[in-house]
């Protein structure tokens, strides 16, 4: 019985961190789908979002809701600006140049923030509190409930947006065939900016949810989180949005299960082992089926 309740709490933990990975993985997958770039600066958007929340709550004493909105706004703007300034000029360059630029932006953000705010972690005052839920022998924390609820809502919203709206369809068209999409009158710059805005906003939400259970901001916090979300995106099939969602949850659950059996020091190792196995066995990921073209 004790084992079962441990397993249950670990599963909830897994879904909680998995939700955060999924939200970040969506950003990786959307951007890859559109411009075939592994945007390694994406994880650092989480870090920037966390610093905005810290500044807003700890320094300016703003209301939590205001700080969250501020974090989303700043991250969105940053994501769009990075694309315009660093990636757009390289649109017709080899993809490797783009990848190296993304890594450069990542270093710039991490070291820039370290320069400005120092290397130490900043403690974010608790801003999301509420009653926890007792289920049998296990408790589900308030932050876990909020994280799951927000993630489910976002996944539904994003799916509707991509499937039903004009811009969402334009995103799918560009990701399938950029040239043909342009011939349809789809404005490439607008669509790419929108994709970066959406991905960065999701990263900011992920950042807030992360802070609700680990209330610390540090300059390098985005790199490990970003890498694991990247693994989640590859596991699900990079470019596939349902894949990113599934991949995130699987990675979160895998980490939690490893912890549940008492091997928590192996957590990171297991995640990267999953990456290696996926790349060896099924490089297109769980849901990334390459469609065959008819001539």
């Amino acid at each position: 019985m004790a084992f079962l309740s441990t397993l249950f709490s670990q599963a909830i933990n897994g879904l909680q961190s998995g939700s955060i990975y999924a939200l970040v993985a969506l950003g990786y997958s959307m951007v890859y789908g559109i411009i075939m770039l592994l945007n390694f600066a994406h994880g650092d958007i989480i870090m920037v979002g966390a610093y905005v929340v810290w500044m807003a709550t700890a320094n300016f004493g703003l209301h939590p809701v205001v700080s969250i909105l501020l974090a989303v706004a700043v991250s969105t703007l940053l994501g769009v600006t990075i694309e315009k300034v660093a990636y757009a000029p390289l649109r017709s360059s080899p993809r490797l140049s783009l990848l190296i630029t993304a890594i450069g932006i990542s270093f710039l953000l991490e070291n820039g923030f370290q320069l400005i705010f120092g290397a130490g972690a900043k403690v974010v005052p608790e801003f999301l509190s509420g009653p926890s839920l007792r289920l049998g022998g296990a408790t589900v924390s308030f932050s876990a409930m909020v994280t799951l609820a927000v993630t489910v809502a976002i996944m539904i919203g994003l799916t509707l947006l991509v499937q039903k709206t004009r811009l969402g369809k334009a995103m799918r068209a560009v990701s399938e065939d950029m040239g043909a999409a342009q011939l349809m009158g789809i404005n490439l710059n607008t669509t790419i900016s929108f994709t970066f805005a959406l991905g960065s906003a999701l990263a900011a939400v992920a950042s807030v949810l992360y802070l609700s259970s680990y209330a610390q901001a540090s300059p390098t916090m985005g790199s490990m989180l970003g890498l694991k979300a990247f693994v989640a995106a590859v596991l699900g099939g990079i470019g596939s949005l349902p894949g990113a969602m599934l991949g995130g949850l699987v990675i979160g659950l895998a980490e939690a299960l490893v912890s549940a059996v008492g091997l928590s020091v192996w957590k990171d190792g297991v995640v990267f082992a999953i990456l290696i196995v996926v790349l060896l066995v099924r490089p297109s990921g769980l849901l990334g089926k390459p469609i065959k073209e008819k001539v």
Partner: protein
Amino acid sequence: MLNVENINVYYGSIHAVKDITFNVEKGEIVTLIGANGAGKSTILNTISGLLRSKTGSVTFEGRPIGSLPPHKVLALGLAQVPEGRRVFLKMTVEENLEMGGYTRPAGEIADSLEDVYRRFPRLAERRRQVAGTLSGGEQQMLAMGRALMAKPALMMLDEPSMGLAPLLVEQIFDIIRELHRAGTTILLVEQNAQMALSAADRAYVLETGRIVMQGEARALLEDDQVRRAYLGE
């Protein structure tokens, strides 16, 4: 209507289109014929704004369009049905058509969809199917229907007969003639010179990036040199 003046287009150091000048008048069917690699698609993509010419100019109804992005060229009424159809295979037939009408006001989309479905009943039957499940001929119809959604004044078609069985080729050319009768000016790029020359008013013959011959399509159809080089006689 469309004036292309002395354009030169390069892919890196490859000079793909050399000093090309031609025009299309309102109400015409004009065809560019020539072998694979003659630069036909490059010319269309330059007109559409996907590629840039180093020299000269492209004007459409008196307006220079040589430096406009593709979505602005389309908004002026110049649509392209690209080579190999390039329909969005993972999207449904109806979504493909909606993408074709991307530059149109939302309120007019439903009417245009009905127009396209009336013209292509096969597409209406398959409106909820993803385009990847259509046959080659159906995909070509979808590509043409998609371009029609933009209500173009001039439609450029890049090798609409490519990879289709002879019966389907006839059918596609019938549709082109119908569109033309309904008032759309046509610029047709083809390797199938026989079909293209019989449908067109005027023609330009391209060889390795240059125009080597031009004139009335009917005259070219009877020209010995053209018959030997392009009609396999």
